[in-house]
Structures are given as structure tokens and as C-alpha cells.
């Protein structure tokens, strides 16, 4: 799975399951909390949803460092394409 495919899939999940406006997901530097309004409860569910979708395990320490869309894509890409 390429990074582009991961980006596309992650954005699809964020739009469909977390009901974010697709237009708000176009800029990779977008901050999850400050700009997309996602909170700590959403963060837990995003991690679980991504783990299920991509068949990987995101470590808690890693998850805590994710602040932007780009960091989320990178985290999954690193696990899928080590």
C-alpha cells in the first residue's frame, strides 16, 4: 500500500466515520485538535479504527505524538511500509 493510498483511505475514514468535511482534510499540516475539533475521546477511536482498517498496532507513545493529519499518515505508513 503506497503512502498516497494510505492518505486516501485515512481521509475517507475521517470523512465517513468521523463526519469531517472532506475539504478540511486537504492540507496535510492541519491540526487534529485545534483545526478539526477532534478531542482525546476521538483520538482513542481514531487509533482503534485505523488499527482495524490497516491491520496494524499503533503504540500508545506513538499515538500521543500525533498532532496533525500528516503525522497520522506517517504513523500508519511507517507501520505498513517499514
Amino acid at each position, binding site marked *: 500500500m503506497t503512502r498516497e493510498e494510505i492518505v486516501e483511505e485515512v481521509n475517507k475514514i475521517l470523512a465517513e466515520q*468521523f*463526519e469531517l468535511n472532506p475539504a478540511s482534510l486537504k492540507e496535510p499540516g492541519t491540526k487534529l485538535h485545534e483545526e478539526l*475539533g477532534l478531542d482525546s*475521546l*476521538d483520538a*482513542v*477511536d481514531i487509533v*482503534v*479504527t485505523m488499527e482495524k482498517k490497516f491491520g496494524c498496532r499503533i503504540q500508545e507513545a506513538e499515538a500521543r505524538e500525533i498532532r496533525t493529519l500528516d503525522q497520522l499518515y506517517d504513523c500508519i505508513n511507517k507501520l505498513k511500509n517499514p
Partner: protein
Amino acid sequence: MNRVVVTGIGMLSPIGNDAASVVEGLKNGRSGIKAMEEWKAMKGLNSFVGGEVTGFDPKRIPRHARRTMGKVSVMATIAAEDAAKDAGLAPEYLRSGRAGISLGSTTGSPKCMSDFFSEFTLKGGIEEQMGTSFMKVMGHTTAANAAVHLGVTGCVYSPTSACASSAQAIGLGYDLIRHGQQEVMLCGGAEELHVTTAGTFDIVRAASRAYNDSPTKTPRPFDAARDGLAVSEGAAVMVLEDRERALARNAPVYAEVLGYTTCCDGEHIAMPSREGMLRCMRESLLSAGLQPGDIDYINAHATGTQLGDAAESWGIRELFGAKVPVSSSKGHVGHTIGACGCLEAIFSILMMREGFLAPTLNLEKVSEDCAGVNHLQQPAAVRARRVLSNSFAFGGINASLIFGTR
């Protein structure tokens, strides 16, 4: 003691999600019960009838609030929001600390519980569970979620007593306002239809089995051919308000809460006690300072079970004789369990306002063990001034509410 009035209503039911459609359904004998084909896959189940709520959009609640809601909380929150709007309560007032919530249900969302335990058992752990799962299934999911969505900062309670949940929720709100602890309470309850609920009643032989091919013919409260209840879902919320405050702001007043009693049989977990029912109704009259002859209509709990309907008929006969008109709304909507106390109280209030009394749908031949009371078998053009609404639950928990004008 403060006097307490009803200034707003909101509901979702198998016969409609607003006052106009509910009144039309009650007037025209429209049943909300349908065949539940998908339940036929459930091994051992014999009851395949239920009442479903449709025609509402969960997305009217923003995702941020809705993410922790199963259907039971979505319905409760919509009913609460509609009731608050109907009463003309401003969002700022709900955040003032002077308004509270009392909303109950039998359990949290049964579908979400089923999903959780399926995964838990299948995977042998909690690895793939969402953080929002628990908030959908916790006992106070309806009250907590409605409070978050509406920004309510007063006291929030969630009575869970199955079929008496929302009647007790109203009673609790009534007491809090009477004693001056809150000015306004959003009170009621909800229930989410699920095959396991039908199973719960079917196991104890209390669910209707003989009308799977003619679902609108069941339940049949008080009828000679009744064979049990039909489980349903719904949500109902009424705004209770300190009468002085309501009058001062010229709020529309549907009715006054005149009396309330809840008591327990303290005998058997499942068998209804006719003496317990009688005591509850009698004490509710005493609490209102009324005599049996002051009541113009009784909305019975009667679910269509053999024992419950007969016991309630006996209690009504002992206290009221054969004069006061009696009907059960469950012929129309089935047993909405956690919602029924408030939903049927709202039906009663609407019938008072509209000047009619709905009969018990499907009551064709009064059963001998339910005889001796004035069963309504046809709609009656009666403008009732005072109504008594009963709710009786597993655990021998009884609740009777009286609404009307003094």
C-alpha cells in the same frame, strides 16, 4: 410546596414523532406493531412482533454529542430537545443550573451491548473496542447524553426500573421542583427495540406469540384472547416547571401534576401484586387530595399479559368501581418499557387537551378476569379534567401519576 405544571412535550413513538400524528393515530386506531422478520433467525424465540420508531434523523444531533449515543440515547435526546423547544426554554436557561434532567431506560443501548459482547467473546478481549462504546451502554446513557447535548448543568438523574423508569423519572422531577431544588426538570425515558428484549419476555412466557402473522392484532390488553405483550421502542420527555415561573413567563401549560406515588410490592420479582397496584393508585389519589370520583380517565399500564391485566383490573375495580373510563395505549404502540410511563402520560394529556379518549386497541371481548371496569372499546368524546396513569415494573415497582386541573 411548589405546584408543578407540564409546559412542554416531546416524543418518538411507533405511531408518530409529534403530537399531531400521535393524536391522529390514537383517534383512528392505528397500530404501530409490525412483523419482525429478522428476529426469526433467533433460536428459541417465539414472538416476532414489535413496534419500531422511524422517520427521524439522528444527524440533527451533532456528531460530537452523537458519538456516545446508541439509538436509545439518540431518541431520548431528540425527545428532550423537542420538549425543551416546545416549552420555549432558552439554551442559556438550560445552562443556568436551575434546570435538570431525569431520564431513564431499562438498560443502555442493547444493540451496542450486543455488538460489544459479540466482539469481546469472539476476540477474547477489548483490543478493538472503541472508547465511546461504554457511554452508549451505561445505565445513565440517556440522561448523561441529553445533558451534554443540551448543556444542562442542574441535577441529572437516571431512574432505571424497566417499565416504571420514566414514570419514576417524572415523579423524581416533580419532587425536586415541589421542594424548590430545581425550577425546571426534563423528565421521561426511552427504550430501544432489540431481539434480546423480546427474548427476555418470551422466556417468561409474557411475549405475544399467536399473532405473528397478524401483528396489528396484538397486543390485546384486557381481551379474552390476549397472549402477551409486544415489545416496542420510543422516547418521551415532558418539561415539568414550577407553576409560578411558568405563569410568570406566560408559558403554555398542558396540565398540572396533581399527584404521584411510587411504592414496591416487596414480594415477587416478576409476579404482579394486585394489592400493590391498588395501594399505589390509592396513595396517588391521597397525594393529590382527590377522591376516586374526581378522576375522569385511567390510562392503564395493561400490557396484554394474563396476570398483569387481571391484577390491574382488580385494583381499578376495587378503587374506582365501574364508572371511570379505562384504556391502555399499548394496543396502539406496544410496550415501550422505559418510555411507556412518560409516553402514555403524554398521550393522556393530549387526549385531555383534544377532548377525546382513545379506546384500548384490539380489545374486542373483555376477558372475564378483567371485567367490572369501564373498558373503553370505542373512542369517546370526553373532555377529561383529571387523568391517572399507571406504570408497573418487574421487581414489584409501582408508579401512579395524576395530571389535570385542580
